[in-house]
């Protein structure tokens, strides 16, 4: 009995920044990061989330852009403060590509949050990462 109920996906409307998706939907999350602080935590927390079907970590900005362009994940997580990754610019390019993709920035500085809003990001995570704040991305606050 308990099992059967757990398997029923309850459809509730979550707002996802500038896009909507119904909870229970399977989503793809692509991460642009070369291995910064908190990446392993994010991967662990993402794997605990049943609605997430695929997580890809991509190191090269151009490969990232290509894959996002082709595969249109529902969410992308972009590292800021890494000299190999022009994070805000990549964010803008993703936004120009598809307004429905939720963009989350990860940074160990507060400084870019204002820019993140200008880009139209959905979330901004400050390191060290906190589980609650991270999971909050998948709910409406």
């Amino acid at each position, binding site marked *: 009995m308990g099992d059967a109920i757990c398997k029923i996906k309850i459809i509730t409307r979550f*707002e996802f*920044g*500038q896009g909507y998706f119904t909870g229970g939907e399977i989503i793809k999350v692509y991460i642009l990061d070369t291995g910064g602080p908190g990446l392993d935590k994010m991967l662990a927390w993402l794997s605990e989330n049943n609605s997430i079907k695929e997580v890809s970590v991509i190191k090269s900005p*151009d490969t990232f*852009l*290509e894959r996002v*362009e*082709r*595969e*249109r994940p529902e969410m992308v997580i972009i590292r800021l403060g890494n000299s190999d990754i022009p994070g805000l610019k990549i964010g*803008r*390019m993703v936004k*120009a*590509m598809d*307004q429905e993709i939720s963009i989350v920035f990860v940074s160990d500085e*507060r400084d870019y*949050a*204002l820019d*993140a*809003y*200008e880009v*139209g*990001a959905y*979330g*901004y995570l*400050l390191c060290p990462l906190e589980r609650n*704040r991270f999971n*909050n991305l998948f709910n*409406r*606050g």
Partner: protein
Amino acid sequence: MIRAVLIDDERPALRGLEYLLKEYSDIEISGMFTNPLEAIEKIAGIKPQIVFLDINMPQLQGIDAASKILDLCPDTDIIFVTAYDQYAIEAFELHALDYVLKPIAKERFEKTLQRLTKKNGINQPSPGKKLDIKCFGRFQAGWDGEEPIKWRTEKTRELFAFLLHHQGREISRDEILDKLWPGIEVEKAVHQLHNGIYYIRKTLEEYGIERSLAGISGNYCLRLGAVVLDVSLFREHLTGLKNNPEIKVLEAIDGLYTGEYLEGTDWPWADLEREQLSRHYSGAMVSLSKAYIEKKEFDRAEEHLLKAFKRNPYEEGITNLLLNIYRITGDKNKAVRHFMEYTKILKEELGIKPGESIQRIYNAIN
């Protein structure tokens, strides 16, 4: 109609915001408060879709006020408008829709309003004007009656033309790299490709061209909506001719061909198409002239052939028909002049003599 509530402890700021919002007819200001506590009291009764909120307020800080408002009205969106830039992170945690600095820059605010109207399902009104794309003659795109779009770089322009060239079809990344960045190291070229696509999208956005009108989807496919594309029309007319070579359609084809395909560009990938379209044009003009000849409208026939000859002097069919007209009308002088010109061009540019059939007609006239 979007109901908005404005909250700022400084009255001038409230008035400034009210003034800015005036020009958006979809937004109705349902309440203005200098005291956030009062606003919170009244908010449930108003149930606004959006609350514009200051951060630094003596009675209650904006972040806390937002929290309380969201408790009371969970579906309301918050937009922070503040002189302080350091609360953006907290704003993100509250899922605030936007965070804008004072003094408010118009362009930045327009972004805010775009997010707002999009979220509330209010579509930007259709401009009611046509998007015109011309590939014959000088390549340009733009709203009908307005200045053509200015592309960021020549490469961006070429990329757009290339996507247009393959319009509706998916092109592989490698094909684009090969045609537009030949001989350039792949990594570098890919980088430039991504930038190019981005700049095209940004430019289209700047000119208010919605994705449904012209948008690049994954796999680099340019999809066009209700756009006037001269090459498309041209091809449609050609197809229509197969069964029924109507003068009307042929005249339309003539009207569309205001120059060679992507004239004046040195893009090698366009060469084949340019040639083909040029031949189709010549063929159509020959058909048109024949139709006029049948109606004994020799002037019209001559006019179109001369025009076609200017564009394609080597096409034998054109000179052939032209000379035939002069034979029928008995216009020896014109025949001689044209034959001389044709011969000269063939000699100077191709190093050949006129073909037998042309020679024969000419001899018949003289």
